[in-house]
């Protein structure tokens, strides 16, 4: 039954909130946990409930709350599968199907905490346990606006979204605010685009609002191309209605009737969830004609990408929705004037849009209570790489990198030494130890040569080779360059070749200058953001890790022991029994020897395949990393 008035929605929400709040089991079925078998955990709970081990609360309303409830990502993916027990908010980690019964009996039945399953910190002798989610160090500094429902509702249930005051913002806007008031509120909140650029959202909407046109469009950018990021996916999968509500609000603000969500090809679950949410929202009257009895009508469609990073760029994305090759076009004209099908269009990121209903519902002042003056609100980050707590975190802007990496992130895996964070993906840069006290906001990251980016944050330790990482990004952008403009197409190839030479130990010092020069050209002359930002990973690493480049170029040494070309296989004459096994497996015949005389590897010919190392029965083959001349002296 569709809601036709705001009052009807409000009374429904009130009823939902009055449902008995008994114990409830939430099982994380976000991608990270699913990959760790959380589906089995969930199914086990379902079985137990069916067998009657646990009295499920019976609701007075038509739709029963699912219990156990499968949820989107709860954040601490590293320790998945996660299970949360309400109302206490107990968080269990690494839950196995066979733990389900124990949890039912002890926690739900007797209110006990199962110590083995809670977050534990070992500080020497002292063992510290944190049974409640809110106390776990990973969550302590987080503020959840975008992820407000992610991990604590069943994403496939509309009622659960409604229970969290869902669609109230939309009802409020279409029945009681003018589009200009909506834009005014977003402008006042200071919300900036979370897709990377940080452009003020209110201003973008205003541009499209003032253009006169019979049709306008809203596009939600869920292309999430940064190869080390999964924030948008988690929101789309874990709380799809918040994205829909944001899109509808944007549509109302600019005067559009139609919206599109452009989802990355690799995210099939997000596509399914969004489609279901659209259907449910239509059935309930939150999408369609005369929403909440107002004059506003709006529909949303999902379009799947087909695997091209450049399609995250606005004009390329538009071309792709139109069924063409996703190649960027020069701006102006900006999409706000001439976008999809030649009509005024705004494009916003998933996270940006998920903020919108919260702002409209709770007010601009409330939003400004988080973050900094110029970057209000929060930012979600996908923490990954060599960090303890890999996962999804939402922190207030203005937090320091140190807090983010060492408190939220729990520091470096295995207590190793921190080396750098890569922030902003292939368009971003590497920041080092000296930047750890930098605050996370648009302006301060920019001043250090990095960017906020969309939220990928990859932590690197001393075992990561910075030069190889720069090569990795360059090979990514080179591969993804659409080829439309020469500086990007040819420049990235040229840069990649130089970087490849460096890691292969075939470069000379003057090539470093060439690399910098090429970087500058690509940056200045490329047509779209892909080319313009592609040199950033190289430029920041050249700036902060010049030593490491020089070690590769001059000494042919990889200080992180990563670049294979700088590794040598040697045969220890003491241990070699001259059995000849290594010579027989060497694919390039570069091991020579005779019976009774230790074998020797010809370093010029060796391709470092490691076969000899594997096969030697006497451990006579050794791996040796070349050392820098200064290290050799001090050693």
């Amino acid at each position, binding site marked *: 039954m569709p809601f036709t008035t705001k009052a009807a929605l409000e009374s429904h929400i009130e009823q939902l909130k009055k449902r008995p709040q008994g114990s409830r089991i939430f099982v994380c079925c976000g991608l990270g946990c699913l990959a760790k078998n959380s589906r089995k955990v969930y199914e086990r709970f379902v079985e137990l409930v069916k067998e009657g081990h646990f009295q499920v609360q019976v609701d007075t309303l038509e739709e029963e709350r699912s219990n156990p409830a499968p949820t989107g990502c709860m954040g601490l993916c590293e320790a998945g599968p996660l299970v949360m027990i309400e109302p206490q908010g107990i968080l269990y980690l690494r839950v196995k199907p066979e733990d389900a019964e124990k949890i039912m009996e002890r926690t739900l039945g007797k209110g006990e905490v199962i110590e083995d399953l809670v977050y534990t910190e070992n500080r020497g002798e002292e063992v510290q346990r944190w049974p409640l989610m809110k106390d776990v160090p990973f969550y302590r500094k987080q503020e959840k606006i975008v992820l407000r429902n992610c991990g604590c509702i069943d994403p496939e249930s509309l009622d659960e979204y409604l229970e969290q005051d869902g669609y109230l913002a939309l009802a409020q806007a279409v029945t009681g605010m003018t589009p200009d008031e909506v834009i005014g509120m977003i402008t006042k909140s200071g919300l900036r685009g979370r897709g990377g650029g940080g452009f003020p959202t209110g201003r973008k909407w205003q541009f499209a609002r003032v253009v006169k046109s019979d049709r306008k469009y809203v596009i939600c950018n869920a292309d999430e191309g940064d190869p080390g990021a999964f924030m948008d996916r988690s929101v789309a999968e874990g709380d799809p209605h918040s994205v829909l509500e944001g899109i509808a609000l944007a549509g109302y603000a600019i005067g559009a009737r139609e919206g599109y969500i452009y989802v990355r090809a690799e995210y099939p679950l997000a596509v399914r969830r969004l489609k279901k949410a659209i259907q449910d929202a239509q059935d309930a009257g939150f999408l369609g004609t005369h929403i909440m009895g107002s004059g506003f009508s709006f529909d949303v469609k999902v379009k799947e990408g*087909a695997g091209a990073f450049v399609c995250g760029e606005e004009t390329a994305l538009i071309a792709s929705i139109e069924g063409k090759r996703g190649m960027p076009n020069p701006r102006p004209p900006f999409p706000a004037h001439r976008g999809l099908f030649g009509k005024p269009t705004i494009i916003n990121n998933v996270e940006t849009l998920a903020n919108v209903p919260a702002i409209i519902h709770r007010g601009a002042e409330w939003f400004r209570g988080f973050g900094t003056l110029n970057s209000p609100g929060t930012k979600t980050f996908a923490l990954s790489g060599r960090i303890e707590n*890999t996962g999804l975190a939402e922190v207030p802007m203005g937090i320091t990198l140190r807090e983010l990496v060492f408190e939220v992130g729990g520091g470096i895996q295995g207590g190793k030494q921190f080396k750098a964070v*890569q922030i902003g993906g292939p368009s971003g840069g590497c920041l080092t130890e000296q930047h750890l006290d930098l605050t996370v906001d648009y302006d301060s990251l920019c001043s250090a040569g990095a960017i906020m980016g969309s939220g990928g944050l*990859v932590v690197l330790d001393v075992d990561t080779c910075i030069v190889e*990482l720069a090569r990795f990004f360059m090979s990514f952008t080179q591969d993804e360059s659409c080829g439309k403009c020469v500086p990007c197409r040819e420049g990235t190839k040229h840069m990649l070749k130089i970087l490849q030479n460096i890691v292969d130990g075939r470069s000379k010092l003057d090539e470093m200058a060439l690399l910098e020069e090429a970087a500058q050209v690509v940056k200045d002359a490329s047509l779209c953001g892909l080319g313009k930002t592609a040199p950033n990973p190289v430029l920041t690493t050249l700036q902060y890790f010049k030593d490491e480049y020089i070690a590769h170029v001059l000494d042919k040494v990889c200080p992180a022991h990563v670049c294979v070309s700088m590794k040598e296989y040697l045969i220890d004459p003491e241990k070699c029994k001259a059995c000849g096994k290594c010579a027989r497996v060497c694919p390039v015949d570069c091991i020579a020897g005779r019976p009774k005389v230790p074998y020797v590897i010809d370093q010029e010919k060796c391709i470092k395949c490691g076969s000899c190392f594997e096969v030697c029965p006497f451990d006579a083959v050794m791996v040796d990393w070349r050392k820098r001349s200064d290290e050799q002296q001090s050693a």
Partner: protein
Amino acid sequence: MAVANEETVLSRRFEKVNTVLEKYGRNPLNLIQVLQEVQAEYRYLPEEILTYVATALGISPSFVYGVATFYAQFSLEPKGKHIIRVCDGTACHVRGSMKVLEVVREQLGLRGEDITTPDLLFTVETVACIGACALAPALMVDEEVYGQMDQEKIENLIEEMIEKEKGGDQ
């Protein structure tokens, strides 16, 4: 006989394409969706189907070909029944994705430039991020994601898949 057989195969092919075309209202704006569904059906985009789609949508074959070659998701070569996508996004890269790729390929006996096994059972590709960065290094088999891969897990996974395929044949 052989010719007749081929013809029935072809017409059956186009029948499925027609269903997809109808579903998308023969609208060129839906070209990408059409190609996606056609590929889901045949596991690749045979040339004659590209031409057929072009004619049916009233656009030039070179436009269709241009779109099909632009997007990484489309393949003009037959692919294996199962697609293994080894993630080489940033997070996986710094946690050893290249080693994962090496082991997967070795397990399947893929050499040189080959990406598909001769029996057309497996195709191995790399992909930049499948959104499971927290579980790096990760890989995807068809739509299923596997995280925190190491040599042993990969070996078991692939052995299991081969086992299953062989079992299914008999």
